[in-house]
């Protein structure tokens, strides 16, 4: 583009011979090479100081003019013959044009850097810079999503943890209903490590989930018959449920409330249901985990891990995927359902982990999660 514009802009205002050689401007970076000719020039300058005032405007136009002079004191004459033989370009210009050609190029840089060259070039450069900047902004957003939100959430999680401790040590608040956005329980997953724990906030709005996993407000509370539903981020924001896909059947998920520990275990996967009793069913960890559909046909879609579309709000209904199932509360299984986005980095679907309550331990004074882990054999 600039190639076409240069001749125009130059020919109209200044029809000087030097300016008519506009196109070479674009070759400006190459100037140092043809500049070997220029070396010859500067050499001339030095040998014939009288000529300087005349050549100044042309050869000194470029800042390079001064820098090059130290180079060729002895070289030019020694070099010159090989140049003529080895390089294709200089021979063409050398005989007639050398005196004129080099001077035309030096004037180019000042006009470009000072006046911004042609308007078209400036526009193109600005657009390019804007695109590069936008690219960097998008990259920065990725960094923000994957790392910065983790730092922010870690701070919120620390605060929620301290708040929960003080809340639990305060007798008056023992049996109040959870407050929106405030922590009311803790979740532990022993297979993710003994130090893996998050507070569970009331509600699944963005503010609650930024702190840690959140409880679907309309679902059951921990330990109750029905479905205790918990959502959590899988990427960024502390990513509490980042590894939820690694949970296998019978893996424990522990919920700690003000007075109890509830041990839930992941239900059999869909492909494990058949022949469960012969295979995993014999594992002591799976003692109280049996396919729910064996006893209640209403649970025929409730497996350890299910992938659903985001509109399946019934994944956290008392009988999963059967929102209209009228089952008496005494027959409802005490379930816990964890939800997160799936696949990772996408919200096309949801990953659902269904677990069933297997044990419940009243918290004794001074009892810790580490003690519980020993008790349930996960330490």
């Amino acid at each position, binding site marked *: 583009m600039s190639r076409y514009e240069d001749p125009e802009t130059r020919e109209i205002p200044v029809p000087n011979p030097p300016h008519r050689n506009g196109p070479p401007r674009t070759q400006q970076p190459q100037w140092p090479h043809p500049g070997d000719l220029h070396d010859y020039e500067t050499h001339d300058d030095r040998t014939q100081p009288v000529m300087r005032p005349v050549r100044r405007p042309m050869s000194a136009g470029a800042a390079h003019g001064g820098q090059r002079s130290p180079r060729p004191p002895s070289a030019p004459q020694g070099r010159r013959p090989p140049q003529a033989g080895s390089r294709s370009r200089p021979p063409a210009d050398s005989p007639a044009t050398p005196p004129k050609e080099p001077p035309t190029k030096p004037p180019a840089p000042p006009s470009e850097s000072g006046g911004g060259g042609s308007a078209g070039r400036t526009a193109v*450069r*600005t657009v390019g810079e804007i695109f590069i900047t936008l690219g960097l902004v998008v990259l*920065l957003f990725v960094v*923000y999503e994957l790392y910065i939100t983790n730092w922010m959430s870690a701070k919120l999680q620390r605060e929620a943890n301290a708040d929960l401790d003080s809340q639990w040590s305060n007798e008056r608040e023992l049996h109040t209903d959870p407050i929106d956005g405030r922590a009311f329980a803790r979740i532990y997953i022993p297979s993710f490590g003994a130090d893996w724990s998050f507070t569970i906030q009331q509600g699944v709005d963005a503010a609650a989930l930024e702190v840690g996993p959140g409880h679907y407000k309309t679902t059951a509370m921990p330990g109750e018959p029905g479905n205790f539903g918990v959502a959590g981020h*899988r990427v960024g924001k502390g990513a509490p449920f980042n590894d939820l896909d690694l949970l296998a059947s019978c893996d424990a998920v522990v919920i700690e409330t003000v007075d109890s520990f509830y041990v839930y275990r992941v239900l059999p996967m869909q492909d494990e249901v058949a022949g469960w009793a012969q295979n995993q069913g014999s594992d002591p960890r799976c003692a109280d985990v049996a396919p729910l559909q064996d006893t209640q046909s209403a649970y025929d879609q409730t497996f350890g891990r299910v992938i659903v579309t*985001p509109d399946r709000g019934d994944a956290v209904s008392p009988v999963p995927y059967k*929102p209209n199932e009228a089952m008496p509360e005494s027959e409802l299984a005490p379930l816990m359902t964890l*939800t997160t986005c799936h696949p990772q980095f996408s*919200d096309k679907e949801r990953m659902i982990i269904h677990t069933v309550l297997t044990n419940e331990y009243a918290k004794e004074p001074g009892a810790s999660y580490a003690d519980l882990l020993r008790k349930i054999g996960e330490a």
Partner: protein
Amino acid sequence: MYGWIWRHLPGPTALRATLAVVLALGVVALLLFVVFPWVEPMLPFNDVAVDPE
């Protein structure tokens, strides 16, 4: 754009470079703590909850 900013920064090169770094950090901070948190909820790639009807 960047050339224009550079030419309009005052002072010697060292001061200009310092100012340029401060400007860049300011823009990054503005993006991280104001713009991105505001934009994020509108981008639908981190929804984790199933929609209760």
